[in-house]
């Protein structure tokens, strides 16, 4: 590659970064307003028109705070941990195709790449909980480690159904293969993926690593200033990622009549994000053992059966 290509790629990355940050910020605002609406109240409506500048104000506040590391924390890991979470989530977007000719990279193992990154993300939370050297974050970190490991497996297995149907790990190929959205062929896979996705992003009803009422704030109890913002950002970019992935893998990505592909992609992703918000305001939190129970005794067997059925049927279908 020559210099110009490098510059183009870098500027592309910078653009994506900027867009993703603003989307995450708008999601925070959107969530607060939507949840407020569902709860019979107004939500933030003071900063800017309709309170739209609220995330900017929050960001400024967090950035201008003193950079404080608790004296008892493991300084290096404490700082690194907070960067891992948004970093891995952001990196995953490299392979997400927004429209039929619009993506940053089309690698042939895209799905594996995303799964690997999401496994790495747990390090951020776990190390954050560990490096804080305090009891509540430790609980949060441990819970998160157990939760992510338990939900990674059924999630991976649920995705294998999609891989079998499309015959590729590349997200672009997977979307192209969806003449019929895979949600129709893989309804169980979709549900399992969505449940695991909520658990992966630590959202209610699976927000046990944070569990405000038990663990104060869980793994990020000892975090403040910009480092807290990183965790926060990571969570929302994670939500965006899961919604985008579900769109790409199960809802047919950019496919759809009348509108251009990017519009369809956006509509589907936003609908899923709304579902995330809606669940958050409606459901109580599960207990830790119940969470493990669902993961290992229900989701994992269901994902295995789904995979086997898909494989057998797919074999006959492709042969026939």
């Amino acid at each position, binding site marked *: 590659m020559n210099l110009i290509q490098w510059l183009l790629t870098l500027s592309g990355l910078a653009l994506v970064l900027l867009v993703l940050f603003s989307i995450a910020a708008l999601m925070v605002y959107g969530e607060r307003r939507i*949840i407020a609406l*569902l*709860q*019979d*109240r107004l939500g933030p409506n003071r900063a800017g028109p309709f309170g739209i500048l609220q995330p900017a104000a929050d960001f400024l506040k967090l950035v201008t705070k003193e950079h404080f590391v608790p004296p008892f924390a493991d300084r290096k890991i404490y700082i690194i941990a907070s960067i891992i979470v948004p970093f891995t989530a952001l990196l995953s977007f490299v392979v997400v195709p927004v429209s039929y000719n619009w993506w940053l990279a089309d690698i042939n193992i895209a799905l594996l790449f995303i799964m690997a990154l999401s496994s790495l993300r747990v390090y951020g939370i776990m190390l954050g909980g560990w490096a804080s050297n305090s*009891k*509540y974050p430790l*609980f949060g970190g441990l819970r998160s480690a157990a939760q992510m490991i338990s939900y990674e497996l059924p999630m991976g297995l649920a995705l294998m159904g999609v891989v079998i149907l499309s015959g590729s790990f590349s997200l672009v190929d997977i979307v192209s293969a969806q003449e019929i959205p895979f949600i129709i062929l893989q309804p169980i896979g979709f549900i399992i993926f969505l449940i695991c996705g909520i658990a992966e992003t630590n959202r*209610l*009803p699976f*927000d*046990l690593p944070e*569990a*405000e*009422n*038990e663990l*104060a704030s869980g793994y990020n109890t000892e975090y403040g200033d910009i480092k807290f913002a990183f965790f926060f950002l990571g969570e929302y970019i994670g939500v965006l990622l899961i919604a985008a992935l579900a769109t790409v893998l199960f809802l047919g990505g950019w496919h759809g009549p009348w509108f251009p592909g990017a519009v369809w992609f956006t509509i589907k992703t936003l609908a899923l994000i709304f579902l995330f918000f809606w669940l*958050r*305001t*409606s*459901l*109580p*939190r*599960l*207990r*830790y*053992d*119940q969470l493990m129970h669902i993961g290992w005794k229900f989701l994992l067997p269901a994902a295995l059966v789904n995979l086997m059925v898909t494989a057998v049927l797919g074999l006959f279908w492709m042969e026939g």
Partner: protein
Amino acid sequence: MTDGKMTLSTQLETRFNATPCELSHDRVKTLSVPLERVTETLEFLKYEATPHFEMLFDLSAIDETERNGGLTVFYQLLSLSGNADLRIKVNLPAKNPVLPSICSVWRAANWYERELYDMFGIHVDNHPNLVRILMPEYWEGHPLRKEHPNRATDMPPYQLPEAHYREIMESYRAEDYREPMDDTEELTLNIGPTHPGTHGLLRLVVRLKGEEIRDVRPDIGFHHRGAEKMAERQTFHSYIPYTDRIDYLSGVQNELPYLLAVEQLAGITVPERAQVIRVMLCELFRISSHLVWLASYSHDLGALAPPFYAFRDREYLFDAVELITGGRMHPAFFRIGGVAMDLPEGWHEAIQAFLKRMPAAIDEYQALLTHNPIMRGRTRGIGILSVTEAIDWGVSGPNLRACGLAWDLRKCRPYSGYEQYDFEIPTAIEGDSLARAEVRLEEIRQSLRIVEQAIQNMPNGAVLSDQARYAFARKEATLQDIETLIHHFITVGQGMTFPSGESLFITEAPKGMNGYFVVSNGTEHPYRLRIRTPSFPHMQALAPLATGHLLADLIAILGSIDYILADIDR
């Protein structure tokens, strides 16, 4: 009934050298027992006497310095099977008083005896853990002794030298009380005093193995304001607003037992209209208290929407309350002998509007909470309490009814005309967190029924007793003639004297049995006011309820017992 009581007191007199020491105006049988016979007397009363006195309702003391000298410790016993009260008194010397512990008879005595030590400096022999409970460790003196200053301005300026400060902070270190040979996977977790799950200033030192609870030690007292001590320098009348703030979520529900006790002491009859207004407001505040419980409980379990719905509905309720009383949470609306004002124009419609919206709202709460599978899964079988245990711990109110015992003072000892209302006592049999939640939701419905009946049958007439001895001069008349003005000036400024005597009244507050024990010396001020709140014994029962469950369950159990820190610490 009377026969049984006669034989019981003669039995006590012959077997334990008890002497009857009843004062007039009180309906509770009172006997004085010599110090050395206390434990066996109480054992007899709990296990052998007919009826059995199963519950240690209250245990505290009176400093008699300004009367006969010494200290009087009183045990309020309650028989749920026989629906009877009994008070056992013991006299102690003022210097180095020692009392035998009765923790072996009632486990609930533990905290009450610590309170005795804390407040009166009574050393309790054989107590498992005799340390201060409400006051901080470093406090000097025992506040409810008469010689202790009544207010901060009577004390020297507060000094906090650096060294002393460190010492104080050291006393708050969560002590590591793991057994030396215990397995190393245990850890001690300090929850609170400020923590989202504790609803106020409550500290829990929890011993955990993994996430499993081995032991819980509640540390209370952060909300102690000396409400009992304050009463000793207020007049009977001017103390009313203070009671509002004991269980600060149920406003007039605190005024009622206090005023009923005072009215019982002075023999005041309350006009019928005032009684119905009192019942109506009390039930509205029961709903209000349960709504806040619902909000905080669902928040404890991670549900984000129900808290807002419950608070929204409470606002509609407060609109009506504000119209009638002028206040919202602490209206201080009841007066000795009635209520402060007659009902304003439009009260009927305001309450009707609230009554109309509530049934659908309760359905919604049920759909979001008690019928929600996640919530059911989390609270079913968690924190189970059996009836016998509950009685032994002094548990009352919805928590007791959730264990299967339909004990409600509004039914079994109707006061303020509760016998005229048609309502049911919701009960459950499981005794777990879910049962407690279901009982409370059903109680809201029953309270709505009572309010409905009250507004339908609101009688006409006066709202304040006009018994000249204990009535304020009517404010309207003070501007007309000088006599009334002088009376008003004197009774408000100085207070009215009340006959000497003792009077206990227990009512069914939203959180359980709320008892006010007024001791009068014949002056304008209570000589001693004892407030027995339901939350205090409930919090004490937390440790046995939570042991063996997970950390997340601790919050679910804590929320389900519905306590208010101000109600515990007073």
